[in-house]
C-alpha cells in the first residue's frame, strides 16, 4: 500500500468540559521521526493516545492512510501501527520471548518467519539474553526494552512511542533512539514523545512542541529549539549552544 500517513484535522479532546487538546492540525509523513515535546500536562501522551486510537477525539478527525481510525478494525490497524506506552506491567508470568512474539499476532501466522522476526527484534532491542526470563521479574529498563522489541516484531510502517527512554540508562536511551532513527530512514513514520530536548534534537527530523493542549512550535530541531521558544513554553531560563560532537543544538538550563 502507499506510504501510510497519519493526520489530525482540527482534532480536540475535552474531558469533563476541560480541553486537554484543542484544534490540533498535524500530518505525519513516512520516513520521518517526529518528537513530541512540551512541559508536563501539555497533552503529549494524550495526543499519542489519539494517534493510537485509544481515545476518540471529541472534535475533529484522526486518520491513518486517509481513513478515520474508528473505521479500521483492530487487527488491520495493528498491522499498520505499533504503540509503546509508558506502562509495561504484564499480568502473568510470561517469558520475555512470549511477550515479544505477541507482536506477531496481528499478522497471518508463519512460524519460521515469525520466529526469525522475533529473534531479530530481541537482538535489536538488546533483550536476547533475557529471552527465557519471567517478565514480572525484569527491571524497569529491561521491561521497556522488551516492549520495544514487541513493537519492532509487529513490523508496522507507523510506530508511536510514548517516552520510550524514560526508564533507560544513558547507553540504552541512545541505542533505542538510534534504532528508531534507522526505522525512519528505512521509510517508517515514527512519532516519539520525549522529555529530553537534547535526545529530540539528536534524533528527530521534526519537533512538535505542545503547550496547554495546543501546538506551540513545529519545525526542524534548529527551528523549534531556540532560547526564546523554550523559555516562553517551559518558563525556565535556558541557553542553546552547539553540541560538541554532533551538528545539532544543545539545550542547557541556565540561571535567571
Amino acid at each position, binding site marked *: 500500500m502507499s506510504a501510510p500517513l497519519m493526520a489530525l484535522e482540527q482534532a480536540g479532546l475535552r474531558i469533563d468540559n476541560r480541553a486537554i487538546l484543542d484544534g490540533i492540525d498535524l500530518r505525519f509523513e513516512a520516513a520521518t521521526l517526529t518528537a513530541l515535546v512540551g512541559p508536563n500536562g501539555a497533552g503529549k501522551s494524550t495526543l499519542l493516545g489519539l494517534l*493510537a*486510537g*485509544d481515545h476518540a477525539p471529541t472534535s475533529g478527525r484522526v486518520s491513518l492512510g486517509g481513513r478515520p481510525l474508528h473505521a479500521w*478494525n*483492530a*487487527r*488491520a*490497524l*495493528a*498491522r499498520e501501527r*505499533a*504503540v509503546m*506506552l509508558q*506502562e509495561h*506491567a*504484564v*499480568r*502473568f*508470568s*510470561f*517469558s520475555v520471548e*512470549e*511477550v515479544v512474539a*505477541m*507482536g506477531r*499476532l*496481528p499478522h497471518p501466522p508463519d512460524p519460521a518467519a515469525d520466529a526469525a522476526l522475533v529473534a531479530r527484534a530481541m537482538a535489536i532491542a538488546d533483550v536476547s539474553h533475557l529471552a*527465557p*526470563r*519471567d517478565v*514480572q*521479574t525484569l527491571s524497569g529498563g529491561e521491561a521497556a526494552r522488551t516492549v520495544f522489541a*514487541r513493537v519492532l516484531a*509487529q513490523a508496522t510502517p507507523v510506530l508511536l512511542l510514548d517516552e520510550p527512554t524514560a526508564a533507560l540508562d544513558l547507553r540504552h536511551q541512545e541505542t533505542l533512539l538510534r534504532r528508531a532513527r534507522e526505522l525512519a530512514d528505512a521509510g517508517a513514520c515514527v512519532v516519539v514523545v520525549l522529555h529530553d530536548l537534547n535526545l529530540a534534537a539528536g534524533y528527530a527530523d521534526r519537533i512538535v512542541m505542545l503547550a496547554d493542549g495546543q501546538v506551540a512550535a513545529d519545525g526542524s530541531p534548529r527551528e523549534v529549539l531556540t532560547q526564546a521558544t523554550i523559555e516562553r513554553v517551559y518558563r525556565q531560563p535556558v541557553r542553546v549552544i552547539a553540541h560538541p560532537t554532533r551538528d545539532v543544538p544543545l539545550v542547557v538550563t541556565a540561571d535567571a
Partner: protein
Amino acid sequence: MSRGGAIRRPRGGLLLLVALLLLVVAIIASFGTGPLKVAPGTVLHVIGAQLGLADPAGLSQRDLSVVWNLRIPRALLGALVGAALAMAGASLQGLFGNPLADPGIVGVTQGASLGAVGAIVLGATALGAWTIPVAAFLGGGAATTLIYLLARAGAARGTATLLLVGIAVGAGCSAAIGFFTYIANDTQLQSLVFWQMGSLAQADWRDLGAALPVFVVGTLALLRLATPLDMLALGERQAQHIGLDVRRTRIALIALSALLVGAAVAFAGSVAFVGLVVPHFVRLLAGPAHRWLLPLSGVLGALLIVIADTAARTLDPPSEIPLGLFSAALGAPFFLWLVMRKAPRGGAA
C-alpha cells in the same frame, strides 16, 4: 514462578494427557467407592450390561442401581462442574488481569445463586427444566458485568478494588438471597439449603443430559479465546494495539464465564475456590499461556471435584459432608497464602 531465573516449561500436551488419564482413573474409581463398595469387575459389568454389551444376569439390583443411577451421573456431572468452574476462574483472571479473581470471591457465584434462588422462591417456571439454569446464568452475567464496570472504573483498579467490589456485590446478593430465604415456604427452603451448601447429591441422568450441551458449548467457546486472553495480559490498551477487539472479547468472556458458573451453580450449588486454586496450580506447572492453561484447568478442575465429591460421600457414612464445605476448607487457606505472597509487590497484580 522463577525468581529472576529462566522459565522452564514442561510440554503442555504431555501434561494434558497425564491429567486426562488421572481423570479417567478417578472417575472410574469413584463408581465403585462409597459406603457401598463395588468391585471394579462388577462396575464394568454394570456399565457393560446397561450398554447392552454384557449379560445382566448375576448382578444385584442394588449394585446396578447404586452404580448406574447414582454414582455414574454424579461423577460425570461433578467432572463437568469442576471443569466449568476452573475454566471460568481462569478466564475471569485473564479478564480482570488478576490471579485472585475467582467466581466465588468476586461475587459471580453469589449472583448466579441469587438468580437460582429467586427463580425457586418466586416459583418461576417459564422455561420448564431450564428455568433455574437460565436464571442462574442471568444472575451470574449481571453480577459479572456489574463487578467489571465498577472494578474498572476506579483509577487504581488493582487487587484491592476488585476484591472490595467483589465483597460489595457478593454481600448485596447474599442480602437478597437472605430476603428470598425469609419469604420462602418450607418446601422451597429445602431446595435453598442445597444452593447454599453446594452438593452433587441430587445428580441424575436427566441433570447430566441438561448440563452437557451447556458445558460443551461454553468450554469449547472459551478454548477459542485462548489467544485473546494471552493478549489481555499486556493490559487492555496494549491488547488493542496488537490487534484485539477488546470490547468484543470482554463481552464474550463475561458471557461465557457467567454461562459456565451459572450452569455449575444451577446443578451443584455454590462450590467455591475451585476457580482460584486450579488455574493457579496450572500456571505454576505449565505457565500462563491460555492455550494450555484453559484445557489443563478444565481437566484438573474436573479431577479435583470428582475426588472431593467421592470423599464427601465416603468419609462419614451414612451421611454426606457437603461438597462446598470441602472446597472451602481447601481453598480458604490457599487464598490467604496467595494474598500474603502478593502483598510485598504492592496492590497492583
